[in-house]
């Protein structure tokens, strides 16, 4: 795989670039969300809770779409998108990204409900802030494992 990375054809570069850029935006937005939600948990700040939600909605979801689209494109280019292919690193990548999307949607919906409550009552619910923080942290751990799998490529 190391040799493959070195001799990678140039027509794989654009899908790979899109895949990595999307993944970086996704992880960056999740990090911003986690930091904001942890700070909001500590201070009960409505504005930080709003940032935690908005970074999921405007950063993590578009980042996930770009990352996943790029992944499918590069997998197609490399011939890795058929049923006969069974690489551990690829399975880890697809599992983490697809389960991560479910968690992302759940966290975004919880975040949206929190923001609605802030508009109504002026302060976020501490319990939903903690649940959203936990989900976002779990996603970050998952994506850390995915980055490890994508770079070390265990067969």
């Amino acid at each position, binding site marked *: 795989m*190391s040799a493959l990375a*070195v001799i990678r054809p*140039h027509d794989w*570069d654009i899908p*790979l*670039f899109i895949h*990595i*850029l999307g*993944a*970086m*935006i996704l*992880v*960056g*937005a999740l*990090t*911003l969300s986690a*930091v*904001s939600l942890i*700070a909001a948990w500590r*201070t009960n*700040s409505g*504005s*930080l809770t709003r*940032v935690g939600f908005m*970074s999921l909605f405007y*950063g993590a979801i578009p980042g996930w779409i770009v990352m996943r689209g790029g992944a499918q494109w590069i997998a197609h280019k490399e011939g890795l998108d058929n049923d006969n292919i069974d690489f551990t690193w690829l399975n880890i990548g697809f599992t983490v990204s697809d389960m991560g999307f479910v968690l992302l949607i759940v966290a975004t919906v919880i975040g949206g409900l929190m923001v609605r409550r802030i508009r109504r009552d002026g302060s976020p619910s501490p319990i939903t802030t903690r649940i959203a923080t936990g989900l976002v942290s779990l996603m970050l751990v998952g994506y*850390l494992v995915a*980055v*490890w799998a*994508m*770079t*070390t*490529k265990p067969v």
Partner: protein
Amino acid sequence: MYHALLFFHVLSAFFLVSGVVMYSAFALGSPLDRATRLVAEILWGVGALGTLALGIWLALNRPEYEIWDGWIIAALVLWIAAMGSGARASRGMRPTADGSPVAVDRRTMFAHWMRVVYVVALLFVMVWKPGA
């Protein structure tokens, strides 16, 4: 050895971009308190040092790469440019006492978005490796 170096190099790049994403949120009007800015600064700093040190180590570790390859020189130039813009942008985004959003002046805003351009270009050079 190669895989460990590559993993931590790529992880550093994720830290770097996470720092950029956090600073972009500050530039777009997100609340800027001491703790979140500190995290952004740590991510940016650790990511910058990690990408540089581990990137040079990787170039020395692999027989197919040389430190004076055109794409590695281009990456180093972009890294230096990103650090320059980043330092200017970070100076202009100081936390407020109550953690409220700050008004970012035009020079700081320009420096920050140039940092974004340099980092994206850096990623493109890393993937494309022109001349390799």
